[in-house]
């Protein structure tokens, strides 16, 4: 008998948290009524939009990058996928501006071709990979991950890529390597906010080596069955689903293996607010806001209740053992 457990990614709302269909339907009817009653057809199309589309929609805007369904435990959540429009218009990518709408507006200038990623530091086989080499290094998989931003909102995004561990195995880290550092592009000519004092550039993020080796840590080249849009970190980024979104560096140009914990961008900017680990943790509040709940973007409009944030963003069964014995309040 096949029993689906948390380990398979079936970490879902308990039945008591699911809005009864009757209430859900009456809410939508109310919205529809108000929309048609107040402003006619333009509004009705919004109210009538497909609320429960399950299959990953192919937006048809960029080059196709298909991935086979992933067999990694926890890699495919069954939750409703966020609209492509929302996932590509509501972004934090400070190199292109601090407003969430800025990256979609400004990132067209990102020079994604040609692209290469230098893998260096404490490894046996350092190498400068071209993007084409990286794309072919391992079979592409589709992973449907929850994404939780430290600001208190979340999305569900179908990424395409493969486990970072595939790349790490190829370059063979030395015994002395303890951390993996991701350095992202900082090109003042094409990125208008590189040079602003919001952060120290280039943007740097890092993982402990065992975190980086976890199969859920995804080296990512695409989303929604296509290559990454510029504002989402084209052409290659990290996605670490059990950590706050900012841990997943975008538009990576260098991956470096080190023996010392690297100083990361947000940690340098405000160490008391953004720790090195930054695991999603409802019990450790940000100094200025609670992390106990989150707003799922695009979920049933304004009146949706915020949902409870899950430990490790719901990936505790998969990654909890990485932090056994650690005080997660101190190592936040």
């Amino acid at each position: 008998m096949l029993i689906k457990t948390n380990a398979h990614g079936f970490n879902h709302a308990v039945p008591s948290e699911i809005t009864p269909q009757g209430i859900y339907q009456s809410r939508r009817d109310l919205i529809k009524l108000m929309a048609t009653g107040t402003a006619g057809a333009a509004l009705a199309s919004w109210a009538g939009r497909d609320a429960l589309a399950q299959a990953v929609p192919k937006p048809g805007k960029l080059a196709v990058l298909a991935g086979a369904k992933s067999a990694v435990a926890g890699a495919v959540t069954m939750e409703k996928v966020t609209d492509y429009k929302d996932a590509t218009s509501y972004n934090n990518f400070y190199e292109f501006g601090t407003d969430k709408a800025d990256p979609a507006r400004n990132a067209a200038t990102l020079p994604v071709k040609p692209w290469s990623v230098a893998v260096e530091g404490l490894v046996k086989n350092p190498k400068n990979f071209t993007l084409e080499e990286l794309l072919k290094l391992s079979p592409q998989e589709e992973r449907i991950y929850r994404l939780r931003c430290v600001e208190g909102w979340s999305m569900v995004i179908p990424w395409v890529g493969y486990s970072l561990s595939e790349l790490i195995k190829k370059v063979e880290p030395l015994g002395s390597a303890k951390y993996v550092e991701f350095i992202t592009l900082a090109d003042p000519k094409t990125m208008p906010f590189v040079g602003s004092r919001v952060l120290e550039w280039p943007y740097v993020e890092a993982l402990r080596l065992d975190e980086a080796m976890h199969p859920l840590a995804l080296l990512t080249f695409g989303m929604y069955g296509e290559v990454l849009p510029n504002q989402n970190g084209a052409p290659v980024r990290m996605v670490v689903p059990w950590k706050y979104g900012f841990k997943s560096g975008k538009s990576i140009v260098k991956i470096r293996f080190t023996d010392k914990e690297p100083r990361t961008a947000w940690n340098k900017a405000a160490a008391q607010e953004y720790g090195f680990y930054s695991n999603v943790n409802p019990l450790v509040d940000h100094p200025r806001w609670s992390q106990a709940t989150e707003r799922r973007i695009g979920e049933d409009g304004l009146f949706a209740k915020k949902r409870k944030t899950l430990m490790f963003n719901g990936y505790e069964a998969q990654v909890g053992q990485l932090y056994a014995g650690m005080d997660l309040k101190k190592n936040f």
Partner: protein
Amino acid sequence: MAAWMAGRQKWLLHPAAKPLIFMVCLLPFAWLFYAAWSDQLGANPAEALVRATGDWTLRFVCIVLAVTPLRVITRTPALARFRRMLGLFAYFYVVLHLLSYSWFDMGFDVADIARDIAKRPFILVGFSAFVLLTPLAATSFNAAIKAMGAKRWQLLHKLVYLIAGLGLLHFFWMRAGKNNFNEVFVYAAIVALLLGWRVWNHWAKARRRVSNNAAVGVH
């Protein structure tokens, strides 16, 4: 020049002027209401509403603080007719701000809201500004002025300077996590300019009084 001045006064004193400005002040609300129902507030409409109503509160505080300097500098006494209405619009937008936060952010959970206010200094500061603005809004009818006496009423309404400062601090703190202060500085510069003018004007008037007194030989 005199004709132009007289003409401007006439327009401002026209019976339609107040309703017209009232409608203009209502436009941001009308737009937000329409945008919310037509899904034009972006991916996170709750956040957009909380932010927009906060922005409009700050803007109306700046506008209401600008009335007196404008009235004096341009010698247009008729501008004073609109000050109370503009102040009430600042209150209207701060109520919407608090309502959006309580509803869309906190789901009207009073215990959660109370915890949030106690725990987060920037919410506490914003909430204090709202609380302090409430008696100003509540005493904005003629009978209240009469009952309180003009002096005391005026003293109470001087609270607006403190409220403007608290509002700015609330905004500053909100943006502090991302070191993104550009907009905060714009509002702070406007408020500083408007309050600075008052200090300067007060000082200049006092000096004029002294020199006038000296001229007529009063010591």
